[in-house]
């Protein structure tokens, strides 16, 4: 499941990013772009949250592996994060408060990018734990660049949603 979700995300995010560049040029595409990005960002968050929510121990280990926060705080963040992602993901998919739920998604991604970058810069060998799993990996098996690129792409889509929250389908009126 983790591998599948990761692979699908790695395809969808670049597609979304290309569409983002196109729709910035061609403004008439905006409503469909907003819907498309809502599906990507919301879907990724919901999936990532769901895959992590079933395993407390693994989730807290993944956050602790970043070695940023004190152990207890990191553990609690690990327990809470999947559920935050699920809630934000559902709201974006439903098209509710897209302006702010898109902003929260972008902020989450910004935090992830910073966290992964510092792990890379400090020479830690960890998996981002984005879709479950996580924690230390062998020195040659890190995928920092890919993880950062993916989260940066999602952040860009989240910012687009913040700036263009109105699209087709959705609860926002």
């Amino acid at each position: 499941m983790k591998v599948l979700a990761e692979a699908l995300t790695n395809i969808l995010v670049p597609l979304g990013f290309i569409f983002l560049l196109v729709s910035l040029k061609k403004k008439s595409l905006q409503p469909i772009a907003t819907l498309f990005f809502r599906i990507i960002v919301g879907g990724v968050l919901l999936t990532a949250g769901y895959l992590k929510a079933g395993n407390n121990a693994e989730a807290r280990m993944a956050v602790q592996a970043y070695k940023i926060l004190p152990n207890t705080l990191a553990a609690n963040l690990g327990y809470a994060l999947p559920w935050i992602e699920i809630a934000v993901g559902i709201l974006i998919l439903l098209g509710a408060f897209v302006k702010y739920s898109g902003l929260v998604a972008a902020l989450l991604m910004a935090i992830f990018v910073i966290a992964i970058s510092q792990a890379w810069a400090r020479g830690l060998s960890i998996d981002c734990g984005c879709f479950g799993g996580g924690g230390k990996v062998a020195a040659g098996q890190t995928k920092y660049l890919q993880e950062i690129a993916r989260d940066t792409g999602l952040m860009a889509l989240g910012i687009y949603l913040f700036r263009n929250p109105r699209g087709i389908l959705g609860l926002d009126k």
Partner: protein
Amino acid sequence: MAEAKKKDNFVRNLIVVSVVVIVAFTGIYKVSSNKKVNANAAIPKAASASEGYGLVYNPSAKVKIDIFEDFQCPICQTFEGINNKYINDLVKSGKAKVVFHPMTFIGPESILAANMSACAADSGKFLEAHANIYANQPSKENSGTMTNNYLFLLGTSVGITDSSFSKCVNEGKYADWTKLVEADAAKRGVNATPTVFVNGKELDRNTQYMDPEKFKKAMTDAGVK
């Protein structure tokens, strides 16, 4: 028009609040029920609350070695293959205080295995059972291979004859105890397996885990004679 707009937002807001409340409550319920430990949880004889509920051997020895591992973790199996003989030596000769912390983050079969190891500890056969579980670690995690019956046979094949062993394994007597072990590991920030601390200091993952000479040297440097 204004009236209609207000009404529309009411529905949306209602849905938003419901989603947030439902997700928040589900999350809090799931996390806390997963962590909750029965107040009368059985604790293995060798376990000590002051050592994070790990299984303690040679409590009065000067040098302390904490080993955190998960019976389903393949790297733990490798580690075991490399250092098992030496660690068993330390336990049997009394040269070091060795504390085993069986973690269970890989899933349900890790809980079954940890439970069995604790049952074996009660029967005085922890080291043997521990080695035998690794020797027979299924190639896939949580694949349904490592059942209580599978584990029971791994125990009896290393000579556990106690009549209570079967009951202990099959009833998951120490399943709740594994939550206590995990809670301590969370407090200490153990985020990978195997993790080894010598006198509270973690070994260097890049060099000291998988090289038997360096592993030994780390122990002798810490005062193991």
